[in-house]
């Protein structure tokens, strides 16, 4: 009923606006999802799923209690690992029972549930509530996401139990409480049944990220980075919040089930506000996603976030939290498709911003010396790919890349962490080399090689398959300049291979040399390897090596799964999960029938060769410059620096294209000046002139009469007498006039 009205209104508006009606839905062709979304069912048999969310909460509370009790053992770590493993097991059980095509809602408890009578007073019944309860929404997308989130959470907590060993005591409890809070928020984000619960998780992961980046709170850089991350995310959150308001304004609900049904029924949401608000929804959501997932222009917080302990970087800032933006857009894909159907360009914008961020971040990563920062920029770059995939309407490609990236990037970070941990906080790749030959570092070296290969997308690796899925799509989906975007992606793939192997070759091959970082030293915590003269690297222990091995096996499995097909087939399973959920509706936008071709081949086939070639070329260049002939790298740098017309390029890349400085100059500083100016305005004008000035008015008026009060008694008497005389004169005058 409402949608019918919306339809008419939209058409009327389009006519009135002089349009040809092309902004409306195509006549006679109802908007539908390629895979229709079934209405939600509330099933009691999934009640166990609630524990996915509660176990991390319990572990967070327990860690808090341990901190209060002053526990100095590894108890917090084991509690957290057990809780997260429990979450993972429950997730696995739940997913195995789940039919991806039939979303299930599990109600936990009432949170916000408002309803009221109609304002016009015509209806007595309560209607139109704002409902956002604590409930879980289980479908292919959330099942897929929760599986790898809880799995990696468990693994990384296990790794951290060794990594954080030095801080046993309050710090240890604090760390694991933070990790538990993060997992709670992430599960709420992924499993939430409505946008407000997603928002709860969204801000919750922001809080966890703030607390964990600022873990070394005595270090000003860490505190600043934490603050920056939270505030940058808040800018994104503003977008998300506005998006949520708009959705509520247009559709009157915030629950996925109701929203998807409304969209499926063709509700363009244009019934309100001439429809302009409806077209804004995807743009607002996009802003939120870009904030959380570190895309241009809101990516600058992610590299700084590397100030946190490395397990945090691996878990939050590589594998899980930063993919929340991808999740958001995949989850709300129907809104983007609706936008596309109405002639909007939101999806194109997602694709382009993703692609350009991928390129920008890759160029910066090429010139960094801090290996964690290289990985951070590579994360930004890979996230760009995922957004590109979403924008190109291959949710499957994007989500597939999320999974492979989660594995290999977590692996890479954990390897970096192991190096940093073992070499006294050293992260500068100029000060490390040939670690391969240091005893005890074999596992780290070879697992990191796997991670690097997977990130570079060399043929046969998991990253290769998932990235190709996105890149080839660029040549299939119709959209503004998508073919150009595809080539940008391909070039970026080459750059990726280069900077990844630049790190690996520099750190693990060549002559062995290393020294600890004097400045770092775990931020004032008592640590024993600050001294330079008798520095001995300590090799990673059993737990770190075990986690690295498991993750690399997982990464291998993701690649092997591609070949063995349906039996162990990861790809088929993922495709099934994604494309049966609300995210999988994108294929509808592809041209029916024949695909366009790329260089005379089907794009999928062509991409195997093209991206493989670019990846291998990048790898080869890295090998030449950083392993085989390191002098060539110095020569190249000298060549660049010697020429004025090009010397700015490596410098700008090393300084991250000065984006941070631009932000400070254009936003932070003006705002600060505005703050100071307003404070001055408040004191001088509002308070000084406005308030004190008004308060002074009676005093000014009084000063007119002040000379009368000269302290002479006779003076007062005279004025009294004079006053009396005046009064009498006035009475007499009135009396005289009256009598005349």
């Amino acid at each position, binding site marked *: 009923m*409402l949608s019918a*009205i919306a339809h008419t*209104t939209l058409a*009327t508006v389009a006519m009135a606006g002089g349009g040809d009606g092309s902004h409306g839905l195509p006549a006679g062709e109802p908007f539908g999802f390629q895979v229709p979304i079934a209405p939600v069912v509330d099933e009691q048999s999934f009640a166990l799923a609630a524990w996915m969310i509660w176990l991390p909460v319990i572990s967070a509370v327990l860690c808090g209690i341990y901190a209060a009790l002053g526990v100095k053992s590894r108890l917090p770590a084991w509690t957290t690992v057990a809780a997260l493993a429990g979450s993972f097991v429950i997730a696995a059980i739940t997913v195995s029972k789940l039919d991806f095509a039939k979303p299930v809602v599990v109600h936990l408890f*009432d*949170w*916000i*549930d*408002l*309803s*009221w*009578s109609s*304002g*016009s*007073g*015509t209806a007595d019944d309560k209607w*139109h509530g*704002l409902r956002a309860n604590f409930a879980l929404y289980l479908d292919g997308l959330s099942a897929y996401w929760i599986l790898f989130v809880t799995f990696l959470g468990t693994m990384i907590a296990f790794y951290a139990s060794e990594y954080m060993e030095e801080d046993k005591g309050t710090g240890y409890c604090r760390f694991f409480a933070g990790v538990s809070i993060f997992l709670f928020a992430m599960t709420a984000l992924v499993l939430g049944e409505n946008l*407000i619960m997603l*928002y*709860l998780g*969204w*801000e*919750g992961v922001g*809080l966890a990220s703030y607390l964990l980046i*600022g873990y070394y*709170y*005595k*270090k*000003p850089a860490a*505190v*600043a980075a*934490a*603050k920056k991350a*939270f*505030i940058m995310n*808040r800018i994104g*959150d*503003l977008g998300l*919040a*506005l998006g949520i*308001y708009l959705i*509520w*304004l247009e559709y*009157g609900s915030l629950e996925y089930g109701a929203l998807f049904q409304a969209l499926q029924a063709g509700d363009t949401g244009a*019934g*309100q*506000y*001439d429809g302009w*608000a409806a077209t804004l929804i995807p743009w607002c959501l996009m802003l939120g996603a870009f904030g959380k997932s570190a895309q241009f222009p809101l990516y600058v917080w992610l590299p700084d976030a590397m100030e946190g302990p490395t397990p945090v970087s691996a878990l939050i800032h590589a594998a899980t939290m930063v993919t929340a933006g991808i999740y958001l857009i995949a989850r709300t894909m129907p809104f983007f498709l609706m936008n596309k159907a109405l002639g909007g360009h939101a999806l194109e914008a997602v694709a382009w911003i993703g692609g350009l961020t991928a390129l920008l971040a890759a160029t910066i990563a090429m010139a960094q010396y801090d290996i964690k920062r290289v990985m951070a920029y590579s994360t930004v770059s890979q996230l760009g790919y995922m957004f590109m995939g979403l924008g190109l309407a291959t949710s499957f490609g994007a989500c597939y890349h999320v999974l492979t990236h989660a594995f290999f990037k977590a692996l890479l970070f954990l390897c970096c962490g192991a190096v940093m941990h073992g070499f006294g906080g050293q992260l500068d790749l100029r000060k490390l080399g040939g670690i391969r030959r240091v005893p005890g570092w074999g596992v780290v070296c070879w697992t990191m090689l796997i991670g690097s290969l997977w990130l570079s997308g060399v043929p046969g690796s998991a990253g290769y398959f998932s990235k190709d899925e996105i890149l080839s799509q660029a040549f299939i989906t119709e959209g503004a300049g998508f073919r150009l975007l595809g080539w940008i992606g391909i070039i970026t793939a080459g750059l990726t291979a280069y900077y990844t192997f630049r790190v690996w070759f520099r750190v693990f091959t060549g002559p062995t040399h290393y020294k600890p970082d004097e400045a770092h030293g775990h931020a*004032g915590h008592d640590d024993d390897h600050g001294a330079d003269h008798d520095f001995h690297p300590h090799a990673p222990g059993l737990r770190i090596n075990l986690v690295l091995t498991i993750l690399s096996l997982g990464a291998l499995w993701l690649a092997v799964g591609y070949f063995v097909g349906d039996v162990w087939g990861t790809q088929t399973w993922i495709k099934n999960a994604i494309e049966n959920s609300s995210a999988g509706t994108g294929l509808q936008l592809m041209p029916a029938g024949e695909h366009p071709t790329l260089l005379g081949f089907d794009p999928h086939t062509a991409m195997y060769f093209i991206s493989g070639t670019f990846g291998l070329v990048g790898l080869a260049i890295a090998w030449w410059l950083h392993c085989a002939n390191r002098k060539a790298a110095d020569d190249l740098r000298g060549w660049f620096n010697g020429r004025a017309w090009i010397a700015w390029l490596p410098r700008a890349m090393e300084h991250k294209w000065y984006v941070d400085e631009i932000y400070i100059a254009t936003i932070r500083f003006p*705002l600060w000046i*505005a*703050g100071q100016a*307003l404070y001055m305005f*408040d004191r001088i004008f*509002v*308070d000084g002139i*406005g*308030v004190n000035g008004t308060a002074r008015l009676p005093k000014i008026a009084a000063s007119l009469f002040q000379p009368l009060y000269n302290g002479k008694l006779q003076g007062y008497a005279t004025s009294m007498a004079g006053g009396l005389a005046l009064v009498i004169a006035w009475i007499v005058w009135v009396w005289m006039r009256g009598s005349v």
Partner: protein
Amino acid sequence: MQLWILLLIPLVTCIGVGFGGERNARAIALGGSLVTLAWAAVLAMQFPHWQAEQWAYWPAPEDNAFPVLPGLGIALELGVDSVSLLLVLLNVILMPCCVLGSWVAIKERRREFYIWLLVLSTCVMGVFVARDVISFYTFFEASLVPGFFMLAIYGGPDRREASFKFFIYTFVGSLFMLLGLAYVAWQHAQQTGDWSFAISDLTAFAPTLSAGEQGWILLALMAGLAVKVPLFPLHTWLPLAHNQAPTAGSVNFAAVILKLGLYGLYVFILPMVPEAVVTWAPTIAVLAVIGIVYAALICWVQTDVKKLIAYSSVSHMGFAVLGLIALNPLGLQGSVFYMLSHGFATGGLFLCIGMMYERYHTKDLREVGGLAFKMPVWSFFFIVLVFASVGLPGLNGFVSEFLCLIGTFTAVPDAKTGYPGVLGPWFAAIAATGMILGAMYLLYMTGKLCFGPLREPADHHESEELPKDLSLREIAALAPIALICLIFGVMPWPILHAVEPVAEEVLKPYPALVESHFEQMDATAKVSLLSDTTLEGSR
């Protein structure tokens, strides 16, 4: 009778404090405030309208009116609805925390201090439970006196200026309010022949006045209430007073006194002058939005942490005002919730700062900081309260901020909520930048105060009276507040449900008025098109 007892308990305690000797003053005051709390809890349990479908006062007016001057219709009448009872609870819960927070800080003239504190408590509760204009106004003004003395005797170095400004500014404002109320009562007497000062009579009568008269009444009432709220640009007394007041005073000012203004908006302005509200809501909203952004930017450049929190109150109250004049149940419920959550979160922050001040005798962010290592328990509470203020989901600030903003956002001519409004997305969008700015200044403060290397004033030496980190007494003052912040964030619905009938009752005349307001405006194509859809849509 129950409510009279509620008001009398603190006053009786005052006598006890007065005769109990300087040493016992704080213990007696604590006991008295706990008894008040217990009695208020009993009342809350007796209160029959938590789940009501219809809005109603309790106890019924005829049981509870005490005629003073029957010829002039002056009768003292007390009664609560769910909103005022919630605000009373806010006050009584914070009162023991205030006493605990001043336990050591007040060293001289203790009896007097606690007497003023208890009198202040009586006065603000009196405002919330008053059901007639005379007692409302009396308590409203009387609350200035204890505030004035607490500020003037126990305040910081600028206490003279602060106390005078606080008193005179708010007093002058409320004189205009009295004028407005008296005009309504006079008109009521003129037109019905009976004098009455009961709020229910006046609110039933006032909407029949002409739009022009309503406008003037709105102006007069706003003059008094906007100062208290405070609304930009009438806020300047607040940073000064909050900054200079002793801890308990700051807590009370921020948590309760500011709510008097909002409560006045809810109890007088919305029901009395609906036509004028519809006309002037955008103007008030503009002031609120300016206040949000303006105060937030000012917060960011403060170095005095108490002043920072004081300005943040100005910013936060803007949200509550927006929610109130969004004229839909979402916003109104959000606004009431905002009063409570701001009371707890900001009150708690002031308590925290007080505890830090007792140890370091400075509240300058440049001199003290990095306390997380030295005072982990304190930092824990501080960070929880900061995030409650930031509006982190799961804590109380989020629910209120979210509802106020979404209420403002949906206050459009053709809102699906059935309650059209005169604000709209632009107000909400600009106000929502306050979320970012709020995170900026609050995290700036946290970063300076809790994190980074430890900084202490040069002349600092450990006090023998206070432990390095919080004592059990201080934890007992903060823990309930932090717990409430969490509970409100996770389980807001009992309160939201309790406010539902109130919202419906207060907003009953508005949808029709707003619609006729839009009809009166030039009937452009747009407006007629939109209102057509509203009519159809609401069926």
